[in-house]
């Protein structure tokens, strides 16, 4: 089984962000990066499937500047077979521009499965996976929280608002992975050592035109500082009074 997992390098969301002078990007001073949360789940799913349905190959793919090599090495340390960097100075906000480059790379790869995280935690668009599927003409299931493969078909569960769907699909396919399906493994020391010898290729990304661009970035208004109104159950009547008369939410 041949599996590609597309991963994105995103800022560590626990950091305090500030807006750069150009007002269209984040200040890079002291910025720390990591693999996107959902991409980690996608990679874990890919590794588990390869183990279960092997022999196989898991290729990790990332589009971005040289900094993405760090998360690609992490993917290799977790167990991926090889890595590909599609090099570009700046990752566009436009999902179609990115999907075009990924589709170009993946088209001739002969993959049984192409996995993505449900969305990138930075741009939060969730468009690249299904767009790549369409550009490749492949079946696609998004936001998967459970997955079973048998032969050349798969069964997935995806969560909807207040419901869940069971979806059957034919391979080859593109899947986007939600949380709850598998917790990403930690790379072992042996894995980290092995990763240094695994192949990591770099080639220029064939980005599509970007028609969706960032005009401005702003930090949302800070919430007013918190306020403790009392201690213990005796504070409950005061809370209800405030909710009714001040916040007016009851």
């Amino acid at each position: 089984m041949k599996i590609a997992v597309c991963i994105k390098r995103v800022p560590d969301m626990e950091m305090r962000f500030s807006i750069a002078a150009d007002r269209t990007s984040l200040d890079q001073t002291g910025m720390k990066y990591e693999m996107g949360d959902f991409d980690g789940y996608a990679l874990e799913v890919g590794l588990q499937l390869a183990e279960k349905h092997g022999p196989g190959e898991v290729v990790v793919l990332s589009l971005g500047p040289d900094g993405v090599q760090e998360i690609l090495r992490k993917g290799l340390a977790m167990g991926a077979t090889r890595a590909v960097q599609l090099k570009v100075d700046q990752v566009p906000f436009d999902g179609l521009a990115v999907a075009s480059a990924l589709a170009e790379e993946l088209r001739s790869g002969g993959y049984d499965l192409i996995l993505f995280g449900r969305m990138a935690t930075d741009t939060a668009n969730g468009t690249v996976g299904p767009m790549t599927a369409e550009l490749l003409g492949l079946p696609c299931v998004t936001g998967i929280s459970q997955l079973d493969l048998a032969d050349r078909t798969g069964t997935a569960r995806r969560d909807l608002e207040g419901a869940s769907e069971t979806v059957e699909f034919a391979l080859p396919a593109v899947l986007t992975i939600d949380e709850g399906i598998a917790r990403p493994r930690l790379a072992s020391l042996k894995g980290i050592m092995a990763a240094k010898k695994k192949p990591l290729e770099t080639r220029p990304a064939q980005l599509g035109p970007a028609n969706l661009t960032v005009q401005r970035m702003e930090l949302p208004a800070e919430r007013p500082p918190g306020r403790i109104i009392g201690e213990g159950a005796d504070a409950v009547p005061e809370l209800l009074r405030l909710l009714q008369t001040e916040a007016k939410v009851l």
Partner: protein
Amino acid sequence: MSAFLAFAETRAGGLRKVAFEAVTAARQAADSTGGGEVHAVLLGAPGMAQEARALGRNGADVVYVVEHSGLERYNPEVYSTTVSERIRSGQYRAAFFTASAEGRDLAPRVAARLGVSIAADVTEFEIQNDAVIAQHPAYTGKVNVTLKLTGSPALISLRPGFVTPAEQPREARVETLEPAMDPAAARVKVTEVAQRSTTKLDLGEAPIIVSGGRGLRAAENFKLVEDLAAAIGNAAVGATRAVTDDGWRPATDQIGQTGRLVSPDLYIAVGISGAIQHLAGMRTAKTIVAINKDKDAPIFKIADYGIVGDLFEIVPRLTAEMKKVRSHG
């Protein structure tokens, strides 16, 4: 004058609230650009056409209905091909979807088929001559991004709950369309839709959320949270990642960076310390209440009203008092 399209989402043979939101957005877009027509597209099993006229209430002039016995449930391939063809032949300035689970699946496929970009998960928008300006919360809600989308048609998916369905009543003309492909030929098939509960509100739609964390100490103590939500009435129950990871609650209840991002009118955090990963999912709630024994817990830094103390005493009292408030009305 430009025409606009709205995709009307359905479930179990009925229109969802987001369908009216999409039509309302399309109507607002049309009215802001000279009052062109609004068309809606609706797919479903035979009988779906009966729902179509309801979209006239929010300003749809024409509703295209695609009925087929193979469309009892969502079918991504039939939907994306059929909606793409409608957009192609309709020469629309923009097409509106919602960023619901179904819309997030459908809209990017339609965009890719048409070879156009999409502004996803949009909270506000403005149609200009040569561009659409859209607001999109990104970086787990920590950064507001203003996006410029050029090209036509512009595809936009709207964050559910951010457009209030508005009455703009008219007689919608209903036209029938054939699906662009045979549903039986689809390679992806939804074989079952399991409704979790017909009585419980979804986290994304509930005006009030009561949420529990590790402070509850055990799965069975979530009953305190459920009782409070029941006493409030129009409330849903959420949880932190720590709690869903431990299996106290299903993963679908998780609020946070990797779970649901919610913006209710009132968020009551019970036994939640306030890890950044959790705050990312609820910091945009209008009013936040926190009940926690540790006065230094980060949740108190953003709670409009905090009570320090033992939740096992405070929450039952709050439930009892809430019942009185709710019964008086």
